[in-house]
């Protein structure tokens, strides 16, 4: 019976995807609200069924699927991200004449893939989840069918994603050759055992981490991301910005944490990761300086934030990483929501100039977007500051003062381009007559939820931090 209960979250997601697809074929595509609400209902049900597993260390398929509290915590993040994306999509799908069955269905499947990725310590199962997510993701990116940019995004995402998958699976093959197991929890033990081939193992590890770095979009595997974000339907871009990163980091953490805890930080691998983190922070932030398209700016911003999260991995601070991921879910997604709130039937406002004087026309929207951007820049008392505080203080405690210095220096750079958006909204005279779309209550709900989350996590994150510590303890 526990086997069934532990499969329930995944089953519900798949069932939801199928129902939404069937619903789309049977109904005239008059309204996208119905499939959206159905998707939300299934996401909620999956959340409840996952919640019942909390603290019980349930397993299925002979331990291949393993629900420790960390994977459950991340599952909640994915479900929340998917739910917020559904809310963002309800009107967007209709405005841009996208097939709504596919949109909501694929979204649920993508979330399902991410859940699989985190709910296992077996790397082959993680690969399975990665592929489930990726295949849904390629289709989601290209869902604006008439749009060239969307098609380009889909192709780019597919090609680079295929490369990444190949890297990852080849890495797994080498790891298996090296230590005869693919269970992340047993890797270091097997490596110390007889018959292990450390060189082969290390080569495999580097390749596997490289494959994950593609999904997380760490430098130098980040190139596809701005194009993909720009071309993808905006709600999809919002989902891509937050959810796959979390899953990628979860797998990364599962592979690497045993080494960090065993005191093997001096290994070349961690030096390499620190270098990648530095390059990601620098490149992401500096490249964002030159962007005038808000979607591209947020794409580079999400690259930069992945760099900060990697600092947490290098410093062996899983709690800091989980907190960062949690708060970034709301800040990152909320910023995209603000773009969607400015759109309307068949049009989107993405250029920075479109935002000039927005503070006068739509003060609420401009105000919320400002708070989110200030959180992305890392000003207190928002959650973005607290996340950086946790991560960088962990880095200093772990002896990586240099990483923390690069982190704060690049944060300073980021202040410039985030505040530039705020400046355009509040300090420039109104140029164009873009206004918040009053006819899109779901998006405004998302914005307020994100605002609330940013302040709650920035000021009183007590409960979430307690959950995170319990999740980390169970890993």
């Amino acid at each position, binding site marked *: 019976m526990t086997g069934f209960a532990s499969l329930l979250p995944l089953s519900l997601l798949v069932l939801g995807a199928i129902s939404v697809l069937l619903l789309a074929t049977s109904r005239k595509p008059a309204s996208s609200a119905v499939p959206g609400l159905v998707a939300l209902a299934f996401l909620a049900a999956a959340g409840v069924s996952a919640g019942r597993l909390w603290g019980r260390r349930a397993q299925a398929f002979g331990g291949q699927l393993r629900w420790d509290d960390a994977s459950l915590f991340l599952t909640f993040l994915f479900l929340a991200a998917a739910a917020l994306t559904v809310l963002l999509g309800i009107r967007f799908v209709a405005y841009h004449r996208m097939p709504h069955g596919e949109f909501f269905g694929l979204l649920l499947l993508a979330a399902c893939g991410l859940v699989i990725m985190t709910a296992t310590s077996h790397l082959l199962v993680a690969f399975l989840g990665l592929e489930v997510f990726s295949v849904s993701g390629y289709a989601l990116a290209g869902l604006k069918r008439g749009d060239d940019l969307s098609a380009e995004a889909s192709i780019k995402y597919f090609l680079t994603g295929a490369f990444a998958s190949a890297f990852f699976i080849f890495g797994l093959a080498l790891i298996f050759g090296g230590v005869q197991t693919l269970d992340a929890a047993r890797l270091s033990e097997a490596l110390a055992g007889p018959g292990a081939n450390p060189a082969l193992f290390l080569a495999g590890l580097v390749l596997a981490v490289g494959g994950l770095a593609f999904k997380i979009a760490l430098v130098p595997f980040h190139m596809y991301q701005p194009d993909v974000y720009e071309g993808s339907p905006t709600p999809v871009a919002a989902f891509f910005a937050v959810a796959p990163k979390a899953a990628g980091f979860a797998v990364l953490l599962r592979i690497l944490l045993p080494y960090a805890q065993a005191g093997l930080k001096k290994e070349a691998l961690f030096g390499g990761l620190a270098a990648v983190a530095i390059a990601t922070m620098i490149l992401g932030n500096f490249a964002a300086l030159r962007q005038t398209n808000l979607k591209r700016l947020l794409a580079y911003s999400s690259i930069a934030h992945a760099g900060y999260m990697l600092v947490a991995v290098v410093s062996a601070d899983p709690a800091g990483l989980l907190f960062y991921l949690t708060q970034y879910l709301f800040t990152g997604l909320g910023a995209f929501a603000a773009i969607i709130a400015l759109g309307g039937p068949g049009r989107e406002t993405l250029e920075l100039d479109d935002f000039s004087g927005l503070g006068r026309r739509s003060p609420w929207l401009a105000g919320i977007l400002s708070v989110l951007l200030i959180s992305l820049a890392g000003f*207190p008392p928002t959650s973005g500051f607290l996340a950086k505080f946790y991560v*960088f*203080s962990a880095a*200093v*405690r772990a002896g990586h003062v240099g990483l923390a210095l690069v982190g704060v220096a690049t944060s300073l750079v980021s*202040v*410039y381009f985030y505040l530039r958006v705020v*400046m355009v909204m509040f*300090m420039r005279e109104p140029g164009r007559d873009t206004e918040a779309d009053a006819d899109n209550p779901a998006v405004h709900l998302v914005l307020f939820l994100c605002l609330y989350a940013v302040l709650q996590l920035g000021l009183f994150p007590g409960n979430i931090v307690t959950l995170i510590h319990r999740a980390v303890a169970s890993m």
Partner: protein
Amino acid sequence: MGIPLLSLITFLPLAGAVVLIFFPKEERRRMLILAMAFALAVFVLAVLCAVRFDGREAGPQFVEQSSWLGYGISYHLGVDGLSLFLVVMTAFLVPLVLLASQASIRDRFKEYLLFMLILETGMIGVFLSLNLFLFYVFWEAALIPMYFLIGIFGGRRRIYATTKFVLVTMAGSLLMLVGIFVLQGAFAKAAGTYSLNIFDLYRLTLSPQTQAVLFLAFGLAFAIKVPLFPFHTWLPDAHVEAPTGASVLLAAVLLKMGAYGFIRFAFPLFPDAVSRFGPVLGVLAIIGIVYGGGMALIQKDVKSLVAYSSVSHMGLIILAAAAWNTISLQGALLQMINHGLSTGMLFFGVGALYERTHTRMIADFGGVARKMPVFAGLFLIAVLSSLGLPGLNGFAGEILCFAGIFSGHPVWAVLAVTTVILAAAYLLGMFQKVFHGPVVQERVAGLRDVRPIELAVFLPIVLLMFWIGLFPGTFLRKTEATAARYAALLESRRTSYVEARRPTGQAPASIAGSATERKSR
């Protein structure tokens, strides 16, 4: 007592801002009344706090403490002699700023009031925080409203000025943030538990190298804010572009945050580094005094003249802090208030002139006193207070500063006296050119004297100037015990480090925990 007095003082303005959000933006009058009501309530509470404050007690009073985020981060407020009058001054100036701005801010008044109230919470929070994390939160949070105030309501080059202000200030604070991490880690290593409580950290003894690095990290953040000589470039830009109200608070309060930071954090936390870098700081302060005064002499714009005079005056305050004895600390504390009042009033005056004539160039005026006799008289009082005329507040502060500096560093004191000479030169020169002489300009001929609202802004400040000038004891009594305690703190920490080093050799960090020190918190 059950009422969290300090929390009320800190967060009441923010509550006012939240209420204000829901007002329709056409109702200027009601919004002003609401904002004023909140700001005045804060002032009343701050005065209440000052009255009930026991000057014989050196430790913080009205302390509120509760755990918050772990890793030594707690919500910890308290007021002592260092912060008491800075808080009162902030609470005193904000209502005046709000009142004065109702004529000058024509557009987007709601946002102006909103950011002013948020700014007040940030400023007061900085002074009341006794936890390093909380301090940093308020320190940074105060930046954002000022960014908007300058950026939305400023002059022609406002966006350049405000961006520069934020980025330069941020650059310093972020290094301080890394410094806080290092301090946090060092304390955890030495004590076994996390704490960012400032009085716990005072007991931490670090190796000289660590102290030097941390002192530079903290010192840079504070030096930029003060601003000390080579880091002052953001100040004239920000001041000239900022609207009057923001200029007043920038000069009166935000600059004090830097000086306060030195006295509260940088000096007592890193005593060894102070003896190393103290002379450097003194030299920079003296350069600032002379350079700021010299630059003020050649300014054509009254507002940038006042801005550069701030660089000069703040130099004296830092010099007094660097001399670090009871008298010089008392002087620095009093002078911070004095500078806030006199410079604040000067900026109010410049604002009043600008509102009438839309120019701030000295050459555009002349003979203003004939048209605005009352205004000229009030302005003269501010000028005289700023240059330290006996009987006014500036004198009381400066004499203490000089006496304190002289007892330790006679040469510094002699060089620092130039601040008075230069101030007399540029302020009186400006006053003469603007207010005296024949009325040549057409725009001056049509000037009208002070309005009642302006009088309501100027008079309380003038009153306070005389009060501090004639009866400085009222204020010094409250700060004396704390000043003496801090003066002794640095001395005892220097010696305790020497002792700590002798038996154990090179301990990277250790806790000097005497029972008396524990008791005093």
